[in-house]
Each structure stands twice: as C-alpha cells, then as structure tokens.
C-alpha cells in the first residue's frame, strides 16, 4: 500500500481509478444524479396530489401507459413513490454523506495515502452504479416500476404480477437492485473500518480522530451489520418471487381471483427482517450528518465542539440502540401487542443521546465567533431541522399515540424532516465546506447563501404542514384524496405542492453553483477556512497519495481553535 504507481492513462485516473478521492467524487456524482431524479419524481407526485385531473404536459408522451394524456393513474403514482423512496434512501442518503464524502476524506483525515483495499473500494462504486441502473431500468419494463413502497412488504412484493401492475418484472428488478446494493455497501463498510483501524498515521490515536471520521467509522459498523441482514432477506424474497418458496407468503391467498400456490409463510417475518435493517439504515443516513456538522461547526465558530468525547459516546450509544428499536415501525402490524411496549422503551431512550448531541451543538454555538459562510448556515439549518424532526419522533415512539398517527402524514413529515432535510443539509454543508479541497476551486458564497435561505424556509413550508395533515388523520401513500374527511385538507396539500415545487427549483441554484464552480471557480488555497485537520495541511486538490510523500505525524487533537494565548488555531500536523 505504501508505494502506489501514479497511473497515467485517462481511463486509470478518472474512470477505473483505485484512488479513493476519484471514487469519492464518483459516488457524489452518482448521488447528484440520483437526488435530482428523486426530486423530479417528488415533483410529479406532489403535483398529482394537488391537481389530480390536470394533465402534466409531456408526461403522456414519456409514460403512455402510466399516464395516458398526462393524467397519472394510481399505480403510476405508487410506482413513482416507490422509486422516490428507494432512490433517496439508498442512492442519495446512504451514498453521498457516507460513501461519497467518507471515501474522499476518511483516508486523508486519518493520515493514510489510500483506503486499505483500493481495488475492493473501486469495485464497491461500480457495483453501486450497477445497482442504480438495475433500479432505474424498472421504469422501462412493460408493466413499469413496482408499487410496494421502499419497504416492499410481503405478500404484495412477494406474490408477483397478480398483486398488481409493476409487481412482476419491475419488483424483481427492485429486489435484485437492492441485493446488488447490499454487496457494494458491505465492501465499502469493510474498507472504512479497516482503514480507520489500521492505516492511521503516527500520532493519530482514536481520540485524535476528527469527529467526521468517527461518524463514518461508526456508520460503517452499523452499515456492516444492517446490510448483512438485508442481504439474506432480499435473497429469501427473491426466492419467494421466482423459485416458488413460501418464506413470506401464507396459504389460501386469493389475488386477482387466483388461489396463490404458496403456503405457510409469515408476512411479519419480512417486516422484522426489513426493519431490523430499516432502522439502523436511517441512522446510517443521519450519523454522517452528525459527524459533518460537528466537524464543520467548530471551524466557523472558531471554538472546539462542546464535549467531543461525550459526542463520540453518544454516537456509540445510538449505534448500539439502533438495533433494539426496529419494532416501533410495527406497533400495529399484528405482532404481539406486548412487544409494542417492549420496543417503545428503547425507542424513547434513544432520544437521550440524540438530545445530548443537539444540546452539544447548541452549546458550541454559545460563546462562538460565528462566521456565517454557506457551510456554517447549513450546519445551523441542520440543527434546527433535526430538532423539529426529532421532536415529532416523540409522538410516534409511544404505541398509544401511534395508534392514531401510524400510517398518516405525521410519519411522512417526521422522517422527511430528519432524513429528507437534515441529512441533505449535512450533505450541502459538506459540499460547501470541502468543495475547495476536492476541486481546487471556491464555490460562490452568494449563490450558496441564496440557496440556504430559500431552501431553509422552503423545507419548513413543505414538511411542517405534513404534521398538521397527520393530526387530521390524512393517510399516507394515497394517490388521490377521495375520502370525505380528506377533502377539506386539499388546500393544505396545494400549499405543500407549491412550496415543494419552489424548494425543488431552488436546488437548481445549488446544481448551477456546483457545475460552474468546477469549471470557473476561483482557485482555492490549501486551507480556505483555516481548519486544523489533516485535509487542510495538504494541497487542494490533494496529490495522488494525499500528502506528496509519507503522511505527516499528528501531535494534537482535531479541534485546537481559540486556544489560550493569541494563536487562532493550531494545525493537527504542526509539530
């Protein structure tokens, strides 16, 4: 690993490169494509919910069977919802903050010249890309994309095309895509853990690792165990679909007037296996955001994070507890009601480390000398949105209240605030913060600020009303509101749709900023934000082996800001 021959051909340096920096950028580009695809789907969904009968220009030609004449059919809406959920959770929120920024910066921050197994690392990206292409191809098969949601509950997902349009080839492609994604994720997590444990430079003890590295390390440990459970679960689901086994399909099901040739399976078994992976997955999406905010906020507050060791302890507590709470997704699913009480306790206990982490951030802002760059604003936005999303979790954690709120828009508002917005704000903050280091060019701060203010206000206008809809009993995953008690809520849905279209359009500012800055951004210095961690003590962008020679030794912690005696900050690598 020490002497890596610097590859010369374009193919080796930019496409099939084993350099963790190139792989990190490839992951981020994939996530960028995925997030705009997912956003487009959410636009179509929101527009359909607000104005179901108004034809969408051009949709009729793009999807002749799904939306003849531009008016969306219910199964087309549900297939958009399924793909929106799957693309956003897997290919954006797991790929960008963890695989994208993690791949790029973990080796540099621990002072290594590359990941422990560069070839496996490269493979993990290309396997993720294959998984994404297999998923997207589900749109173009005859019956279209699956409609069983990103949770794909059996038997709707397991029976096959009798269960409805999209449940034939489309659902099989979905299952295969997730199976391939599990392989990629396990390889990625393996690399992260080994690099963190074994390839740290001299002086880089675990206590001296930057908090973003801690977050990626703990996320990869969670990811390892979570995806190691999802993989066999998808294999069993695939066997149920194609090989006629009955792991998840009980006897005597009559679907489309046909008695299904299965017997004895348990639909709850799929829900248990899925959510055993599902809840750690939402922490895989948010913990890198924790690490990123705790890494970036001190740089702009010019003071270290309040209680970094407490923060790390909270990360570990969350990682451990995340495996004990999956049942709160299934309070009303028909499992034994006693286990609902059992699962509600760890679910409420896990709010303690989450609250501590939030209070540590707010405590860090206290007494700071905050410089409000775009990255800093997105960190503050992250804290505010995470508070809103976390607090709505209080309601859903109690089985008695979940009796009313389960399956309503309250849940949609909750997980969008925490995953859909907070994690995205983490990705935005990381982009604005690390873009100069990755591309050697500065991003436009004015565009960044416009992007922040419009998005911050926009997301509250989109997702806070969803909590009100939930309180009114508005059921989620509905493609049209024909029930009598839902009709008075349609104006609120129209408000959300307008806000969603606006907030989505605002993201084009970010896209323009990213593309323009890559081509014509001002050249970036090695340490634009006066950070102290190792990524700032090498050139922008870093040379092939990160430090142009052996990695420097490290002599102190990652956040030596505002140290007593006039020096503003001391670099980690400074002797």
């Amino acid at each position, binding site marked *: *690993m020490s002497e890596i021959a610097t590859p010369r051909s374009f193919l080796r340096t930019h496409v099939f490169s084993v350099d963790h920096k190139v792989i990190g950028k490839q992951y981020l580009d994939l996530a960028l494509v995925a997030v705009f695809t997912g956003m487009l789907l959410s636009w179509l969904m929101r527009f359909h919910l607000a104005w179901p009968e108004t034809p969408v220009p051009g949709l009729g030609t793009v999807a002749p069977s799904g939306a003849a004449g531009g008016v969306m059919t219910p199964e087309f809406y549900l297939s958009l919802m399924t793909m929106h959920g799957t693309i956003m959770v897997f290919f954006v929120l797991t790929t960008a903050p963890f695989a994208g920024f993690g791949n790029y910066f973990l080796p540099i921050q621990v002072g290594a010249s590359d990941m*422990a*197994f560069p070839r496996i690392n490269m493979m993990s990206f290309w396997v993720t890309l294959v998984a994404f292409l297999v998923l997207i191809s589900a749109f173009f098969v005859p019956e279209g994309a699956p409609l069983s949601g990103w949770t794909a509950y059996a038997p709707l997902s397991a029976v096959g095309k009798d269960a409805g349009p999209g449940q034939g080839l489309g659902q099989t492609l979905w299952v295969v895509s997730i199976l391939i994604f599990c392989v990629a994720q*396990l390889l990625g*997590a*393996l690399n992260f*853990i*080994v*690099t963190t*444990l*074994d*390839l*740290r*430079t*001299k*002086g*880089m*003890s*675990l206590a001296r690792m930057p908090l973003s590295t801690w977050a990626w390390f703990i996320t990869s440990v969670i990811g*390892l*165990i979570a995806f*190691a*459970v999802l*993989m*066999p*679960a998808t*294999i*069993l689901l695939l*066997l149920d679909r194609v*090989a*006629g*086994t*009955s*792991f998840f399909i*009980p*006897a005597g099901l009559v679907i489309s007037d046909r008695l299904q040739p299965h*017997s*004895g*399976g*348990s639909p*709850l*078994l799929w829900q*248990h*296996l899925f959510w*055993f992976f599902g809840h750690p997955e939402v922490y895989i999406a948010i913990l890198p955001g924790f690490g990123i905010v705790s890494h970036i906020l001190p740089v702009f507050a010019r003071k270290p994070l309040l209680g970094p060791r407490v923060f790390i302890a909270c990360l570990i507590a969350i990682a451990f507890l995340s495996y004990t709470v999956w049942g709160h997704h299934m309070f009303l699913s028909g499992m034994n009601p006693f286990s609902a009480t059992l699962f509600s306790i760890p679910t409420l206990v896990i709010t303690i480390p989450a609250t501590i982490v939030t209070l540590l951030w707010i405590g860090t802002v206290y007494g700071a000398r905050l410089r409000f760059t775009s990255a800093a604003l997105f960190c503050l936005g992250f804290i505010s949105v995470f508070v809103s999303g976390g607090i709505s979790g209080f309601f859903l954690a109690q089985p008695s209240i979940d009796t009313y709120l389960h399956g309503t828009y309250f849940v949609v508002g909750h997980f969008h605030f925490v995953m859909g917005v907070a994690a995205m704000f983490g990705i935005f903050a990381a982009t604005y913060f690390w873009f100069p280091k990755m591309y050697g060019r500065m991003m436009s701060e004015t565009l960044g600020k416009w992007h922040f203010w419009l998005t911050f206000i926009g997301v509250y206008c989109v997702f806070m009303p969803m909590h009100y809809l939930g309180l009114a009993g508005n059921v989620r995953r509905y493609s049209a509101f024909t029930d009598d008690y839902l009709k008075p809520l349609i104006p609120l849905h129209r408000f959300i749709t307008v806000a969603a279209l606006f907030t989505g359009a605002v993201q084009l500012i970010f896209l323009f900023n990213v593309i323009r800055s890559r081509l014509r951004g001002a050249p970036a210095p090695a340490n634009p934000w006066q950070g102290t961690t190792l990524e700032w003590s090498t050139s922008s962008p870093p040379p092939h082996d990160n430090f142009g020679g052996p990695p420097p030794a490290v002599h102190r912690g990652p956040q030596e800001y505002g140290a007593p005696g006039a020096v503003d900050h001391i670099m980690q690598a400074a002797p």
Partner: protein
Amino acid sequence: MTAIGSVAQPSRQGPAQTGVLIGIATIAMSFAALTSALVVRQAASSDWQHFRLPTILYLNTLALITSSGTLEIARRKASRGAGLPWLSLTLGLGLVFVLGQILAWQDLAAQGLFLATSPSSAFFYVFTAWHGVHVLGGVAALSYVGYRMAGGPSGRALPTALGAGALYWHFMAALWICLLAILALRI
C-alpha cells in the same frame, strides 16, 4: 476489533487480518439473520416437513475439517518455502467439500425434496448454498495466494495474506459445523 486499543502504528498483522475479521463478522451476521428467519418460519406454520440429513454431509464436514488441518501445516511450512503442496491439498479438499454438498442436494432431490417443496428443504438449500458460495470465495482467495507463492518472490506480504486466508478458512469450517448443528436440530 483487535486493534481498537492499540495506538498509532498500523497493527502488526496488517489490514488483511482486520479485513478478514470484519468479513467474518458480516458473514456470521448474515447467517444469524437466516437462522432467526428459520426459527420464526418454523414457528409460523405447521407445514415444516422434517427429513433426515443426507449422510454425505458428515463426510463433507470431515473433508472441511481436514482441509483446515492441512492449511495449518501449509502455513508452518510456507516460511521454509514448502507450503505449496499442502496448500493445494487444502484447495482440493475444499472442492471435495463443495462437490459433496452438491451430491447432498442430489440426494435430497432424489427424495423429491426440492427448493419449493417444503420450508425445511428451502432453508437447507439456502443455508448450504450461501455457505458454499463463501467457501468458493475462500478457495479463490487461497488459490490467488498460492499463485503468488508459486510465482517466486514471496515478499513480506505473503505470510500475512496466508494468515488472513487461513483465518477465513478456519471460520468457514467452524461456521459449517454450527450450521450442521442448526440443520440437524431444526430440520
């Protein structure tokens, strides 16, 4: 996590060792998921058709255990450059194990127990297939190490690669013994 306590320098065995340990944890977790699925599925309904495990499984187990033994010998002799024949014996035994598993499948098929016939046969096939895939992965890794051993300059990395490969292989054997116990108890 062996290296969690140690300070700065990369651990003596190198990343390969840690990588294999993490791989082992992942594979063990996936089998834990399959085992819990087996237990829940057996309790879910009364259509669990018990059948006697084909006797060839016990011969396969023997082959796998002896291959662990020969691999240990290969590791000791490797430092004196005489490890190759023992390593190829290990690979041979590994392939014998996999062929034996396929014979067990045919024995089951002869009894009319296919993948979809009953949940018990389904889990038998899934367990043996999932384990077989990982054994083949081990065979591929060890044959790559053997190729590098035979290729001449053994280099510093070889003993660690062989050590890591051996660790993985022993895990394959231990895992199979656990799986056999689970299958014997449950099916």
